[in-house]
């Protein structure tokens, strides 16, 4: 283990004074001072007054905190953190996809690294049980998603799994972000000085800016169609987000229908698409409504459950009959949303 890794490991476990670091690590005083100075310059460490004493600590930003978490977990798993957290192993880790075609030659092509380098790193991953050997000749590996470092290693990657933004004209008093829990953690760190709220939790902090970021966490990466289905069963979803998604023209209706069939929500979604289409014809293609209608289920569903306690307004009849739904929707709110796009 190199000296910087040892210093970071020690300080990660517990903030230390510089004297304690010098006394406890088996390196020369001069080498430790040089390493610490360089780590302070690189902002990998900070000096902070803790319990009345000046100590070395890990910065509070997302990357540093994740690195700290990784170091502690890696040491407790018997993994040299510095060996794994270099650019080359991370590049290869990133390239090992979910599919089972991760041969040395495929990974070499994906990363632009030589097959020799890829093979060395794969052996390192195998030694630490970060990957499984699916096949020996040629070597085929798969990520070990049960390894305690699996999620942390993914979090160390630069790639983000949020979708391309959808642009809306005008100004909104909030920004809305739906992302996976891993990505959400990064966003929380990034936005913690501003105003933010996490959906469904009641967690809300006021910050220096008035415009609040409303964050919504999902278990993994969601396609736009999955986001649509997540939103359509919420009051805010039907009055704005779903309409904006439809107006973006980026919804793949065949895929949406497949998801609806799987989740048993063709009636509700078809009904909503029909209503939106009747309010603004160009938002939903005619053939889409017809295809959904051809797949209506005999099982009656309630749409939208959250609105049931406020009762019906009297306009719902024809849609209820057509789509076999018990309909509770504020048509005025949907109209307002439709007029805005």
């Amino acid at each position, binding site marked *: 283990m190199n000296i910087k890794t040892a210093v970071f490991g020690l300080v990660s476990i517990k903030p230390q004074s510089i004297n304690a670091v010098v006394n406890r690590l088996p390196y020369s005083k001069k080498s430790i001072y040089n390493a610490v100075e360089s780590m302070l310059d690189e902002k990998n460490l900070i000096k902070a007054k803790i319990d009345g004493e000046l100590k070395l600590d890990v910065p509070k930003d997302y990357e540093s905190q994740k690195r700290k978490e990784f170091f502690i977990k890696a040491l407790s798993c018997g993994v040299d953190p510095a060996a794994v957290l270099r650019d080359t192993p991370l590049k290869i880790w990133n390239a090992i996809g979910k599919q089972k075609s991760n041969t040395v030659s495929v990974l070499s092509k994906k990363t632009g690294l030589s097959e020799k380098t890829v093979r060395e790193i794969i052996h390192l991953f195998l030694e630490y049980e970060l990957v499984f050997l699916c096949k020996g000749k040629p070597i085929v590996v798969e990520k070990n998603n049960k390894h305690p470092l699996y999620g942390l290693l993914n979090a160390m990657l630069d790639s983000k799994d*949020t*979708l391309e*933004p*959808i*642009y*809306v*004209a*005008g*100004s*909104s*008093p*909030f*920004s*809305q*972000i*739906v*992302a996976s829990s891993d990505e959400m953690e990064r966003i929380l760190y990034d936005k913690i000085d501003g*105003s933010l*709220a996490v*959906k*469904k*939790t*009641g967690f*809300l902090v*006021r910050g220096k800016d*008035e*415009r*609040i970021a*409303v964050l919504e966490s999902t278990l993994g990466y*969601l396609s*736009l169609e999955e*986001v649509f289905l997540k939103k359509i069963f919420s*009051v*805010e979803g039907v*009055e*704005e*987000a779903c309409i*904006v*998604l439809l107006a973006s023209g980026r919804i793949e209706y065949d895929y949406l229908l497949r998801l609806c069939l799987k989740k048993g929500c063709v009636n509700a979604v078809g009904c909503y698409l029909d209503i939106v289409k009747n309010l603004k014809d160009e938002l939903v293609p005619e053939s889409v409504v017809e295809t959904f209608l051809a797949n209506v289920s005999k099982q009656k569903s309630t749409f939208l459950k959250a609105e049931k*306690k*406020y009762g019906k*307004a*009297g*306009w719902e009849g024809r849609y209820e009959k057509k789509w076999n739904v018990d309909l509770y929707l*504020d*048509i*005025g*709110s949907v*109209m*307002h*949303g439709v*007029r*805005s796009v």
Partner: protein
Amino acid sequence: MNLQEFPVRLKEDIEDQSLSILKKINDDIIVIGGWGVRSHLGKHHGRYTLDIDGVCEKQGLEVVCEKLKDAGLNVTKQAWGVKFFQSYVPTVEVPLDIEKEVGEVELRIEISGPRISEAYSSHFFEFSLEKFDQKEIFFHSSDESVGVRVPSVEVLTANKLGLPTDYKNVFDALMLLQRCDIEEVIKKILSSDDWGGLVIRRMPKIIGRLKDKTDLVNMLLVSRGVDVAKQIDILRDIEKSIR
């Protein structure tokens, strides 16, 4: 998914161009909707709608129609009034990755008579064309402003409290409510036909959204430092007074 606004310069260019159109007809209409709310609350409102909503009398509409047609806007008649629109032509640089989205933006002005009917109900709200406040809306790109005629803050609030309870209307209503003489709001609700009946119908849902800490409306108001519990008490008082 990330619903994102256009970059600030572009957004301000869109708003300034909309304001330039409004300048041509500012003495002919009463501005309602998001722009009306904004004229009372200023930048603190934080919500800027692309559409300009206005009301005027029938003869006035003909004048507006002529002026906007001369300015190159297209016209379509709608069930509720007349919609004027034209494609937005940016005067600032547009990032390449959003060229398509920007190309689809329309500048829109929607004008109807002073009586606003609620869809799927017999209720209506009538804006006065004689009584209004004179407000200024400033351009982003210069110190210039446009003088606009808007209903008083109490009239706008009275109207908003009877509108559908989507987050935009409820947020607007509650932000306005804090600037209001509550007695005046009650008078305005009661003076416009049976608007009170609609306000009574909306109230449980408005209060429900305010009370629910996971609802967007609650989050928006709390993040602005609004005392939500106090607002709920005020809304209950309004409801009691108009019953």
